[in-house]
């Protein structure tokens, strides 16, 4: 009987594949928009305005903002994918195909999170690629200072936001909820999370207040991976973010088990 299969068995792999194919087959809807947006970011902030901004921590402005833009794109897409896919499935009720199957709740949650985190990572790679093209054309190509940290932070932040996306997809009662979450919660946190500036330029109490924003640790950690420069101890950031991600994944599983937003 298939139910004896493991959490990561055929059922999990099928749902994971379905979730990945959903966005891979629609690159114009999923990968092209962040590519174009980031071409604009790099062109305007990096080239047009960046030339008039002093170096930050010894880095040209376009180099400094690259990690932040990668984080912004990666987590937005991880969040959006999970929230949209789950909400759309609820809205049209085809999520019942998975819900009425012998998939365990943990398998379902892990499949949604893994597929969404992968989309975030792919978008992050695309944005990094756009950035490297701009850097190569205008300044000089840069390498990755701490690849291990970059991979670790990339994984943990996309998993974290994919997990938040699952909560959002279960909570949403309407398509407007998805827009609200992205525009009014995630974007402000990211923009005040040190994507476009170093925390050192902030006066007190704003610098200390910024440390309450989890985005600060994420941007700082990815920046450390790319540039080898961080305002905060990257190991501490990684530990806190990993703990948070584990907690939100556990919350997702609990919500699925309770049937929150899924069953009557």
């Amino acid at each position, binding site marked *: *009987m*298939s*139910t004896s*299969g493991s959490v990561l*068995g*055929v*059922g999990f*792999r*099928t*749902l994971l*594949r*379905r979730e990945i*194919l*959903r966005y891979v087959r629609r690159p114009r809807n999923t990968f092209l928009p962040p590519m174009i947006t980031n071409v604009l970011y790099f062109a305007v902030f990096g080239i047009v305005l960046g030339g008039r901004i002093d170096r930050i921590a010894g880095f040209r402005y376009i180099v400094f903002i690259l990690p932040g833009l990668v984080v912004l794109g990666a987590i937005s897409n991880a969040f959006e994918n999970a929230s949209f896919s789950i909400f759309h*499935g609820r809205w*049209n*009720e*085809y999520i*019942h*195909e*998975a*819900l*009425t*199957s*012998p*998939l*365990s709740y943990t398998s379902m949650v892990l499949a949604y999170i893994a597929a969404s985190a992968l989309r975030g990572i792919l978008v992050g790679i695309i944005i990094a690629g756009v950035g490297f093209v701009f850097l190569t054309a205008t300044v000089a190509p840069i390498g990755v200072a701490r690849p291990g940290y970059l991979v670790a932070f990339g994984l943990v932040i996309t998993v974290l936001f994919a997990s938040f996306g699952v909560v959002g997809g279960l909570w949403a009662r309407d398509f407007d909820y998805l827009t609200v979450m992205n525009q009014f919660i995630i974007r402000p946190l990211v923009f005040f999370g040190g994507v476009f500036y170093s925390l050192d330029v902030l006066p007190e109490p704003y610098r200390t207040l910024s440390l309450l924003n989890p985005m600060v640790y994420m941007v700082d950690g990815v920046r450390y991976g790319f540039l080898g420069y961080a305002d905060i101890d990257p190991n501490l950031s990684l530990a806190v973010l990993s703990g948070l991600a584990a907690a939100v994944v556990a919350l997702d599983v609990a919500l699925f088990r309770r*049937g929150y937003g899924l*069953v*009557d």
Partner: protein
Amino acid sequence: MAPPAIHTRDLVKEYADVTALRGLSLTVEQGEFFGLLGPNGAGKTTFINVLVGLVRKTAGEATVFGHDVERDYREARDAIGLAPQEFNVDRFFPIREVLEHKAGYHGIPAAEARRRADEALKTVGIYDKRDTRFDWLSGGMKRRFMLARALVSDPDLLILDEPTAGVDVQLRHDLWEIINRMNDAGTTILLTTHYIEEAERLCDRVAIVDEGRKVEVASPGDLMDRGTDTITLGLRNPPATPPEVNLGGVTDVSLTDGRLLVTAARGSALVPDLIRELDERGFEVTDVDIERASLEEVFVDMTRSERAGGRRDESEDGEVGRAAAGTGGDAGTDVEVSR
């Protein structure tokens, strides 16, 4: 002894402002073709959704092949193939892939899932549409696809919620044939339908439910026996007033256009005695026509009397619960439960 395919006891589902199931107890044995009849809002779909995990019960027990639908949800769901009334199909993928996914969720490896998807599409006759997305299928093809999706995991229990709603006669007969073949091969079938004829033709037993309760469980034939048949007799010299008939089971005798109309339970069994009695009274019977009570009439009578009884009890007791109007069920059927 093999556990029943479906067993529920005192199943209750309460929403904020409405109670959909009020202590519904049902047992469907393995291999049965079981019909669930009831008017709109009777709780049929809620009952099904409790079994597949789309509705969380408020109280009571529900098992599928002995597996508790909440505690052993994976085993219970693995046994079920569901064709719901509403079209809840993944619109992102061609229908063949939708079936492959559904099979995969049931733990069936990719190559086997592809084979089963093709087989299911061929069974329902839409294999040539395999690369089409659901939205582009005609209404009849959509109904066929719903059945294919229920079949693809090769379930032991096939649950069909109004499978022939809104389809033409030809397709309805096609679907009946497929479902019958499944049942002949040993698959237990739970069918809800508004088409009484469908239940009459297909089901071994039917449960009539109304307002979240079971009114009766019996075979369609037994239920029809409980209705009143109408016997119409032509008389060579019809009298001016209806003759007296002293036979058990006769509920009414009347004359219309010179023909004698006798209504009676189990009318066909009564005909020889009726003719003999009329003969003894000097009436020569020229022809006889028997119109059997339809399941539909029995159904309407039962749900009507149930509702009338419900209203009476509610006004007397000030609460919703009441005893059953039915007279009890046959083997495997619990006595109606009131709350």
